[in-house]
């Protein structure tokens, strides 16, 4: 039975990746959205002038971009299951519901990370001067990205499953998702800030915020995982 669950997990993940490579629906729209956000940021900051140290606001700005970008991607991730009624065929198969959750979660996480990793260099290229590097090693930023994206995909997979069945699904996901994500978002911004700005206490600060991220991930993933069976079967 375990062998079958693994085969099912791979099948759903592979199907999502193949379809994404073919249509590039999620990654393109998310990437474009990230770039457009940067243009908007440029406008928003244009009057602040040279006196503004962009590094102070950058951690916040990238997470604003990423949270709205992930909304876009998460919304897409269930639309193709729903529109052709494929979700029914999926549920009809002898498949444990958590397998569906984990494969969808993994796919969403993957796509989100790809876009984040691609857009981050563009972001720093456009906004940071050459001498304004990241104070701490880059892997710390990578760790925040991974930690926060796990939480975003976990809760997002559950909420996208809900919102795809509601009227006005796009706005619904945002209404449910953004407030739930607040604690994670706050911690992610804190950790990113500590990594970018540096300074003597930054390591302690960074790990403090990362502990929040980790705690959120564990709690939310467990709850989302437990609730998924009910939600997808409804």
């Amino acid at each position, binding site marked *: 039975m375990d062998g079958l669950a693994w085969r099912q997990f791979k099948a759903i993940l592979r199907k999502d990746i193949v379809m994404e490579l073919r249509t590039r629906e999620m990654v393109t729209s998310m990437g474009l959205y990230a770039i457009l956000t940067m243009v908007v940021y440029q406008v928003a900051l244009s009057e602040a002038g040279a006196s503004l140290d962009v590094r102070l606001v950058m951690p916040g700005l990238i997470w604003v971009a990423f949270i709205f970008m992930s909304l876009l991607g998460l919304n897409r991730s269930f639309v193709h299951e729903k529109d052709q009624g494929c979700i029914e065929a999926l549920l009809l198969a002898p498949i444990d519901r958590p397998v569906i959750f984990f494969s969808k979660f993994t796919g969403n996480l993957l796509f989100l990370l790809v876009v984040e990793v691609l857009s981050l260099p563009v972001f720093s290229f456009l906004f940071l001067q050459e001498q304004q590097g990241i104070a701490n090693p880059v892997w710390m930023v990578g760790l925040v990205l991974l930690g926060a994206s796990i939480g975003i995909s976990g809760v997002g997979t559950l*909420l996208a499953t809900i919102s795809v069945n509601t009227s006005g699904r796009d706005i619904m996901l945002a209404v449910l998702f*953004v*407030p739930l994500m*607040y604690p994670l978002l706050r911690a992610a911004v804190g950790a990113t800030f500590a990594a970018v700005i540096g300074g003597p206490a930054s390591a302690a600060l960074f790990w403090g915020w990362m502990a929040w991220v980790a705690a959120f991930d564990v709690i939310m993933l467990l*709850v989302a995982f437990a*609730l998924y069976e009910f939600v997808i079967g*409804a």
Partner: protein
Amino acid sequence: MKRRPIAEVMLALGGLITTAAFFMAFLWAPATVYPDGRINFSQKIFYFHVPVAEASFLVFFFTAFYGVRFLMTKDRRYDVMARVATEVTLFFVLLTMATGILWTRVEWGVWWQWEPRLTTYFIMTLLVIGYFVLRNSVEDDEKRATYAAAFGILAFIDAPISFFITRWVESIHPVVLAGGESSGLEPPMLITFIIAQVGMLMLGYAFYQMRLREEELHERLEALKISIGG
């Protein structure tokens, strides 16, 4: 039918007790003073603001609790209970927000301040509102109930965060129920506060039961109409 008198007794009792607490707050509990000796009259808001806030957390717990019960049993009554509990939560949340805003205006000189307690409580308000937005956009009864239960459980996770945040991180919001010497309440103040709290919880229970009874009557009416129609 038996629940109805209990709800009404609770309503009357809660009304009486909170009214008593109201008079105690202004006539008996000593006024606090600022360090420079001026009287801090705005502190009186605390006697109702905090009980209302605590009540909102407590009632919100029942949203999650009945959400779990619903998912376990798929019994529609638990969905109704969870929804009514969330309605009462929304009621208390709005009152907390309104009284809190008035207090911060006096005390901090601003209507709103993005500090941890206010921010997390604001998030909780959004979640409670989101719960109803979600309910309104699902057609099917059972789907609506299931989604609302799931979201109610997720949303409740924010309540303890909001409750404990003033103890975890630096915040300018006063920590009242810290216990020990840091709470700094003189006995008459503490007693007044506790009485207001008890009365408020009774009112919360009465509100919940009254709304639940309304829903039950509604259901009975529907059933009667269906029995006639068939």
